[in-house]
């Protein structure tokens, strides 16, 4: 159905090709998962399917990409609209109309579908994706998961035989992600649509995949990467089980399977749980390692805090404190008030009621220079922190802003995302690399309190692991770290304390282990495999196992 024949692609002004001699085929009706490290060219590969690469990017593409026998060099994306539907990373960026129903009909209007047929297909898609309650809603009022489902629906109404999705769940909370993935599997199983999907958080999708394409990255710091994966810019294709044995990025259940030598590797919690009886037996009576206790001095505190925008109150009566040397995970649905709490801690807005205390002052009254020395926030879209046109200029500006010796930001950057070219434009970096750069800029000011809003969005496991190491080091240096995130695996890895927000109120606040283990939504994969014992990460389990059991 989708065929890549010796495809190489080089971005304009790039020295190294992003894709190199890529050849593979996706047969009809398969769900094909594209994985690979941050910045390895997954998005490039996906957008080449209907010719958006190179038509919207420039650059040079050799070889042939064809869909259903139509080569993209002869068929422009619009001429392929009836067989390929492409959904980008940010669904809202692609919306053309303003009501759900109109958005669904848009592609059919362009294709000239007969009005009565259009009406029927819109109804079908509304039902298929569970959108019928939303049909007349303005798109701007939808939540992230709803927007993503509308975006999928808006290409599905054309009746495409191929669906291409770039990280459809990366911005969603666990429940909304389930919603989208359930819709996807339904399309594959009930309608036989061929799906090509890229995803960083493999734990969510790998169990549904028929085939896995690994795009090789040139990431020297990839952890636990067994040899045998593809080189940079090249791909390897195969069944999920075989591919994950060599993949540089794997979900926790697979990592656990690798660590204890299970073959074939388990792909889902269900698979792993069936095999884990013996493993749990080895750990009876062993307590998981304790996390850091709350001991340091209070860095910031909110008392009876109400905050929000205009007439809206996003936080209600929140009492929260963060001490030096602890890592706090802030969890909750999209829109539960996590970002508002973080922005209150650095004084981006005045509280509506109650107070915020940041090292003795109310942060919204402090000068910006004063705030960054006390607390650093990396906002959700880290790219807004970047102004300059090269990585090097960003780093030296950051050294200058924070009054640091030259090169300090660059060193921090190399620790997070190694090997960025100094003259690369920040907007040409991949999502993960860009985030790494903004993180480096904020961390370079050495604030005692570090606030990270969704830092793992777009990061692969290796980058997440490095982020976790950095967070642990920051905590060891006596800093307080608050991480607002949907990513339960990151919470499992780094957090000492977890705070769950719902509708602007704190509904849980306690040791991370207690808070996440028994929640069906927030429990990490390892906890689900090892339940009822409270283990959170593969590393914890492996370290506690008797030597003979480890692979």
């Amino acid at each position: 159905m989708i065929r890549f024949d010796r495809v190489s692609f080089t971005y304009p002004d790039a020295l190294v090709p992003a894709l190199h001699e890529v050849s593979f085929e996706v047969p009809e009706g398969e769900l094909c998962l594209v994985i690979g490290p941050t910045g390895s060219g997954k998005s490039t590969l996906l957008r080449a399917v209907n010719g958006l690469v190179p038509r919207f990017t420039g650059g040079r593409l050799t070889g042939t990409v064809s869909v259903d026998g139509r080569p993209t060099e002869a068929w422009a994306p619009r001429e392929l609209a009836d067989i390929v539907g492409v959904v980008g990373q940010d669904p809202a960026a692609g919306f053309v109309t303003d009501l759900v129903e109109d958005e669904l009909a848009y592609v059919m209007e362009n294709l000239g579908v007969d009005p009565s047929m259009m009406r029927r297909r819109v109804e079908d898609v509304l039902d298929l994706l569970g959108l019928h309650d939303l049909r007349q809603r303005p798109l701007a009022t939808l939540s992230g998961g709803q927007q993503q489902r509308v975006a999928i629906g808006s290409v599905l109404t054309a009746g495409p035989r191929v669906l291409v999705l770039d990280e459809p769940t990366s911005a969603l909370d666990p429940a909304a992600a389930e919603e989208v993935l359930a819709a996807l599997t339904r399309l594959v199983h009930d309608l036989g649509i061929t799906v090509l999907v890229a995803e960083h958080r493999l734990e969510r999708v790998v169990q549904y995949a028929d085939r896995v394409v690994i795009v090789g990255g040139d990431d020297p710091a990839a952890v636990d990467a067994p040899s045998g994966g593809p080189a940079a810019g090249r791909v390897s294709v195969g069944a999920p089980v075989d591919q994950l044995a060599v993949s540089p990025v794997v979900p926790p259940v697979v990592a656990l399977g690798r660590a204890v030598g299970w073959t074939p590797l388990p792909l889902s919690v269900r698979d792993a749980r069936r095999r884990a009886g013996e493993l749990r037996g080895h750990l009876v009576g062993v307590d998981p390692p304790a996390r850091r206790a709350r001991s340091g001095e209070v860095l910031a505190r909110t008392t009876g805090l109400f905050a929000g925008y205009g007439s809206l109150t996003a936080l209600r009566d929140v009492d929260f404190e963060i001490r030096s040397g602890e890592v706090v995970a802030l969890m909750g649905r999209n829109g539960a008030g996590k970002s508002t709490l973080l922005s209150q801690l650095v004084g981006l807005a005045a509280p509506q009621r109650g107070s915020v205390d940041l090292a003795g002052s109310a942060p919204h009254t402090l000068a910006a220079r004063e705030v960054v020395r006390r607390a650093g926030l990396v906002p959700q879209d880290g790219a807004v922190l970047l102004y300059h046109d090269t990585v090097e200029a960003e780093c030296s500006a950051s050294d200058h802003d924070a009054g640091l010796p030259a090169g300090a930001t660059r060193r921090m950057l190399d620790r997070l995302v190694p090997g960025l070219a100094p003259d690369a434009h920040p907007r040409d970096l991949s999502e993960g690399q860009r985030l790494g750069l903004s993180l480096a800029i904020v961390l370079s000011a050495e604030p005692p309190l570090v606030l990270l809003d969704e830092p793992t969005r777009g990061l692969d496991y290796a980058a997440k692991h490095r982020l976790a190491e950095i967070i642990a080091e920051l905590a060891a240096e006596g800093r307080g770290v608050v991480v607002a995130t949907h990513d339960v695996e990151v919470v499992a890895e780094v957090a000492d304390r977890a705070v769950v927000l719902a509708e602007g109120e704190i509904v849980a606040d306690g040791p991370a282990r207690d808070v996440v283990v028994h929640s069906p939504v927030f429990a990490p994969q390892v906890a689900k495999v090892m339940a009822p014992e409270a283990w959170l990460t593969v590393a914890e389990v492996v370290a506690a196992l008797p030597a003979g059991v480890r692979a």
Partner: protein
Amino acid sequence: MNRRSRVVRRFLHPGAWWLWAGCGAFVALRTTNPLLLGLLLAVVAYVVVCRRSDAPWAHTFSAALRLGALVIVIRVVFQVVFGNRIPGTTLFTLPAVDLPDWAGGVSVGGPVTLESVVGAAYQGLRLAVVIACFAAASSLCSPYRLLRSLPSVLYEAGVAVSVALTAAPQAVVSARRVREARRLRGRSGRGLRTWTDVALPVLEGALERSVALAASMDARGYGRRGSAAPMARRGAAGLTMLGLMAAAVGSYGLLDASAPFVLGVPALSLGLLALAGALLLGGRRSQRSRYRPDPWAFPEWVTAFSALAMVVGIVVAGRAGAVLEPSVQPLEWPSLPWAAAAGIAVGVLPAWLTPLPPMLATLDAGPTAPERRSLPKPWPPAAPSLSVSPSRAEAAP
């Protein structure tokens, strides 16, 4: 009569609303009589309040009223500082500066008379009412809906316009985020650097969004080749351009009494003919189809009729010699031309005789907190509201 259309909630045809608002603006342009302008403003505001939906775009009207007030203030201030010296009742005297001849001999300051201030206020009010009319149209139906009902030959140009329209509010949001981000980097203060720091990322962001939107539209079949030959396509585009230009010149000729006759009716007719030709040519090549097109039924006819009544009223009043531009020298209390006032009053009919718009935001009862941010306040406040009240109640303890 047509009770059913009153019961079933639906959007009125966007063309009807724009016709109504356009006629309102025409009436406003023909008069400076504050009584007529006030009546027109009241009619427009009443219809908006009765018939706007709860969608985000329906909230431009109050902003437009504020803008209108600002326009009046600016017009009066300019008159006070730079305006012609109309003799009359002196309110106060500003220190006068006569600019030299090479600067046009403009005088700044001097005695400020009641007559000049009132005249300026009349003109400011007229502009404010025109603004309110167009804001009413865009509150009553979304710009995209109007676009959808355009003939397909204009559709592609229209999409470009609508993309440009959405860019402005998005730029405001993105500027706020960039300013916040500056603070996060420890930069504060003002000056040139602030501007470059904020403007560049905002512009880059806008460009990126446009490219992303263009890619999404292209991937969804926007601008697919029709079956028609390239010649017909180019012909239609050329005729459209020619027609629009001729129509613009023609309307100008009609409004400006001193323009030569040929720039009036003949130019306008030529433009309309060219546009009709373009529609025919373009309609043949287009393979676009339309999803649930808005019907043109009884309520639309009522709206169109009330729009025409407003125009007829003011024209008849003008012909009959009524005072549409009340004298400010000597200053007189303006009289109310009854024909014009009656015409404008008919313009209120759509407030009662058109269907209510569908409820959009309140269909789903359980939006979470930040979603509410973009939800409008329900109107009228006493209306059953599923969406907003809890957070309000909490916010005002």
